[in-house]
């Protein structure tokens, strides 16, 4: 029945009012001739309203005459009638286009951020972190999609409470899934905090235990920072009692990290000959179809470069549609000796690419050391960072180590 009503809407229908003594006869004659009547209502004695398709209305005259009733159109309904009404209304069309345009535009934006895994203050803090990383309501989804990995990386670095973070875009919602870090329960046996690496202590905050170092001390890897061995005098017996407790606290220190880059002085370089072969193709999901160009036109040594232009970003990154331009260029490889400036520039460029992972952690400008090693030049960049260097170590093992080596701490 709904199907018939939908068809009737598109073909157009009329609401009729029929008056007369033999309304039932009219209904039977109309339905008997194959016409479809619906929503028949008796609104008064000898008066009914009914709905009838447009083309059916043109055929009812003989039946109306035969039944001795009088039929009038009460209202015209359906798409043809609606179209005639709205086609002249310019403001309506303007509004409709504006609404559709606005909806289309809004559908390209990320409007909501849904965080799954964190709650309360942690959730709010994560949202602020994401905002600073670039994920905020009102940003185009396409832009965020390109920056997804960077945002995820930045957010995970700045959220120590999270062990994993992933962003998924669903329509106008950015779903952020976080896995909370589960800290192991505090050890029940005695533990010390020792230095994880060499450094200069800048801050000592003891939660449990006794501080062995102070600000300004220089420590080496493995040095005791906070001791878990506490001694006290028993008020009843008057003897010294040694207790082993799990030490806890934060020991921040200035530490140095070296980044090494080795750059050869002689390199093989491609000298481009004036011969190139360009092939255009289109990729749709896993299928690639060549549009223009011959792949095997060039012979000999050649280099290949690929340029891509995505024309459809689907939700699934593997199902994109993109234009691909492949360029093969004929080359001749030559061994070239680089000048010192060129070697240094190449080394710095490589170091810059590597140090992206230290972004936000480094204090000040890194120190550069250049070492000439014959055919190579070595660059050592020393970065200074401030970090918590405290690391747990069982007290008993440390005591045994000290007793073996005769160390007194």
């Amino acid at each position, binding site marked *: *029945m709904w199907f*018939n009503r939908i068809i009737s809407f598109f073909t157009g229908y009329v609401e009729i009012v029929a008056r007369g003594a033999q*309304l*039932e006869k009219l*209904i*039977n004659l*109309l*339905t*008997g001739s*194959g016409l*479809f*009547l*619906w*929503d*028949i*209502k*008796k609104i008064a004695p000898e008066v*009914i309203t*009914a709905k009838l398709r447009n083309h059916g209305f043109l055929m009812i005259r003989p039946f109306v005459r035969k039944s001795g009733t009088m039929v009038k159109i009460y209202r015209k309904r359906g798409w043809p009638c609606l179209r005639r009404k709205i086609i002249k209304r310019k403001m309506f069309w303007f509004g409709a286009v504006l609404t559709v345009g606005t909806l289309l535009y809004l559908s390209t934006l990320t409007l909501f951020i849904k965080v799954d895994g964190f709650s309360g203050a942690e959730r709010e803090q994560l949202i602020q972190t994401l905002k600073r990383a670039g994920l905020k309501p009102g940003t185009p989804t396409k832009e965020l999609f390109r920056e997804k990995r960077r945002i995820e990386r930045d957010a995970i670095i700045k959220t120590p409470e999270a062990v994993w973070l992933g962003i998924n875009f669903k329509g106008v919602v950015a779903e952020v899934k976080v896995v909370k870090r589960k800290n192991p329960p505090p050890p029940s046996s005695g533990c010390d905090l020792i230095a994880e690496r060499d450094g200069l202590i800048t801050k000592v905050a003891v939660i449990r235990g006794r501080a062995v170092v102070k600000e300004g001390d220089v420590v080496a890897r493995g040095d005791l920072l906070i001791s878990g061995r506490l001694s006290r005098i028993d008020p009843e017996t008057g003897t010294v009692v040694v207790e082993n407790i799990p030490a806890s606290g934060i020991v921040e220190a200035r530490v140095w990290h070296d980044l090494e880059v080795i750059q050869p002085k002689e390199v093989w370089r491609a000298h481009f000959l004036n011969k190139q072969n360009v092939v255009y193709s289109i990729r749709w999901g896993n299928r690639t179809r060549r549009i223009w160009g011959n792949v095997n036109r060039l012979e000999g040594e050649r280099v290949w470069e690929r340029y891509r232009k995505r024309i459809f970003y689907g939700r699934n990154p593997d199902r994109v549609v993109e234009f691909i331009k492949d360029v093969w260029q004929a080359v001749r490889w030559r061994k070239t000796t680089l000048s010192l400036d060129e070697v240094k520039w190449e080394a710095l460029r490589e170091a810059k690419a590597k140090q992206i992972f230290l972004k936000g952690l480094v204090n000040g400008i890194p120190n550069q050391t250049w070492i000439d090693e014959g055919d190579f030049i070595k660059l050592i960049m020393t970065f200074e960072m401030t970090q918590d260097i405290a690391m747990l170590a069982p007290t008993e093992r440390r005591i045994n180590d000290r007793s073996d080596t005769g160390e007194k701490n």
Partner: protein
Amino acid sequence: MKLKQSRLGMKLAEFLELPLDTVIDLPKMIISGNQQLVIENHRGVIEYESSVIRVGTKLGELKITGAGLTLVSVYKEELTVTGKIERVEMVDWR
């Protein structure tokens, strides 16, 4: 003659276990609660009021009594009545 044919058809349908409404056009009624009644194989509307609808069938007359009765759709073969159905009577059925 017609009666003989229908009796023969009924016996054949019973023997072959075929539905009677398809073989000899017996009226078929489907009532959904007291809200809707669908009648298949009807022979036309005899009377239509908002409290009473009388529909002709091959076997006799079907009288539907209730309140706010509406003919939601009327086809040649099928008729749908909605409203508050209180009583369905088979009047003078053979």
